[in-house]
């Protein structure tokens, strides 16, 4: 088994899940509590990775962070090397690709929090931000864990986006799914089978955890 690929994948999935906890919470909060009438425009953008082919998403990310885009130029001026085909570039792509897998369970959990509790907190002089951390987060803990775990599991198995943005660089961007593909190309079915089995077992374990912990919270979109 290619332990380097497994380690890269594990790192990528953990960092993606952590980043999505930080980025996804404010987005989910805004999606849940905003009364803006055009909110659905943002909701649809967040959900886009669910339906878009990974290659399409990967293509746009590649173009967006490439040397011909302002973002790509800014990054290479800052760091000294371009973003595509690096671990950081792959991380950025993974965050975008797994965004709905974090934001949707977060938003579903926030939706379940009784508004009257939030109002009670406000009238007790507790600011909106403090209310979020003191009240909303503890009440939606199951949904937060679900979102983090699902984005972790989803990143473990990504293929199309990795191939487009990350390429196939050993120890940098070669993930487990790419490794399996390479083994099959080289007709090494035994090697591919072992790695594939590992991925199935880990993914199944992660989903078991989510479903066992809370059956109510998981939903593709929050119920309205």
């Amino acid at each position: 088994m290619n332990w380097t690929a497994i380690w890269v994948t594990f790192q990528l999935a953990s960092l993606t899940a952590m980043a999505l906890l930080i980025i996804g919470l404010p987005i989910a909060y805004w999606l849940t509590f905003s009364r803006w009438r055009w909110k659905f425009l943002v909701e649809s953008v967040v959900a886009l990775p669910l339906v878009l082919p990974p290659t399409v998403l990967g293509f746009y990310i590649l173009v967006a962070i490439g040397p011909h885009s302002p973002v790509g130029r800014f990054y290479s001026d800052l760091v000294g090397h371009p973003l595509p085909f690096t671990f950081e570039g792959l991380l950025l792509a993974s965050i975008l690709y797994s965004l709905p897998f974090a934001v949707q369970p977060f938003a579903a959990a926030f939706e379940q929090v009784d508004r009257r509790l939030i109002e009670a907190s406000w009238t007790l002089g507790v600011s909106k931000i403090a209310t979020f951390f003191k009240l909303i987060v503890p009440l939606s803990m199951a949904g937060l864990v679900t979102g983090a775990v699902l984005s972790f599991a989803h990143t473990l198995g990504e293929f199309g986006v990795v191939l487009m943005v990350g390429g196939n660089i050993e120890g940098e961007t070669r993930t487990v799914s790419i490794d399996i593909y390479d083994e099959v190309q080289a007709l090494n079915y035994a090697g591919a089978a072992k790695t594939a089995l590992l991925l199935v077992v880990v993914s199944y374990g992660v989903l078991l955890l989510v479903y066992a912990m809370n059956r109510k919270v998981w939903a593709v979109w929050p119920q309205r």
Partner: protein
Amino acid sequence: MATTLSLNCRKTFPGRLTIDAQLELPLDPPRVLILFGPSGSGKTTLLRCLAGLEQPEEGTIRFGLDLWVDVARHHFVSPQARHLGYMPQDYALFPTHTVTGNIEYGLSELSQDERRTRVSEVLALLQLQGLEQAKPRQLSGGQQQRVALARAIARRPQLLLLDEPLSALDAPTRGALCSELRSVLTRLKIPTVVVTHDWTEALTLGDHIAVMSEGKILQVGVPQAVFSRPANETVAQIVGVETVIQGQVSESENGIATVHVKGTAITALAVEGVGSSVYVCVRAEDVVLEQAGSGMTSARNHLPGLVSDMVPQGVMVQVTIDCGFPLTATITRGAVEDLRLVPGASVIAAIKAGAVHLVPRLAG
């Protein structure tokens, strides 16, 4: 400094209700104002406007020197900055926090020592000792209500807002907790606004009462005046109790109480937990008028008096009798003719003991 609550609010709910309420009332010395009206009359919405949880479309809200809302100038003070105690109808206790956690939730600005003192103070005031570590779902309805009140008063708010504080409780608990709430409010000395649709609660808790119907405040005054002299027919219908008069319970035996009202002794059903100071309440339709000198009936109270006023109300006539105190009766036009009632005629008013309701009077 007079703490005056002054509000002028307009808010529309398309197809349902338009709230258009004006009120100006000094709440100093600290007083309890009752917002009274049937469900759907807009009381809760008005209370939420006071709390800052709802924004009026037009108008101003002022409390003492603070301007809370001025829609014309886009001025809106957040609920956090109003320094209120707000108790919603279903209490909204935080399920993840213990009793202590709920009470000290809004006290994070205090030092730990102060916080601890404050919590034990309100725990003692509301007799919640021993429940400090319990979670809300382990508490009875009455205990939850006391925790919610404790949480609301722990910050020593400048205004206390209670939305139907007793309606989530079952009837026997409600009576006992109503008297308890009254004594707590008397001791707290915080200006308070209470929303209720129950007239016994209104009488027990209120120093002032504002009667609401269909989004409008129809009458404001001391409860006795509002109940006895409703400003118009709508108010009369809403309050439903025409005679409210102060009395003293002189004895209470075998479930029967004797109450003295302006020198007249009235027999009523005794109510547990009622002190000696009471409001004697009688509905006009429960008063039977008899010709002077007629025979016995089963009614325990026969009060001789003179007809002082007669107001026709559709097929009924509302007759006011002066029997030491004004007593209102509603009878049919036919009965008026049979009894040959005219202003000044002498008549006997009969009331069954069960139709005389005693409501504890708010002391102080």
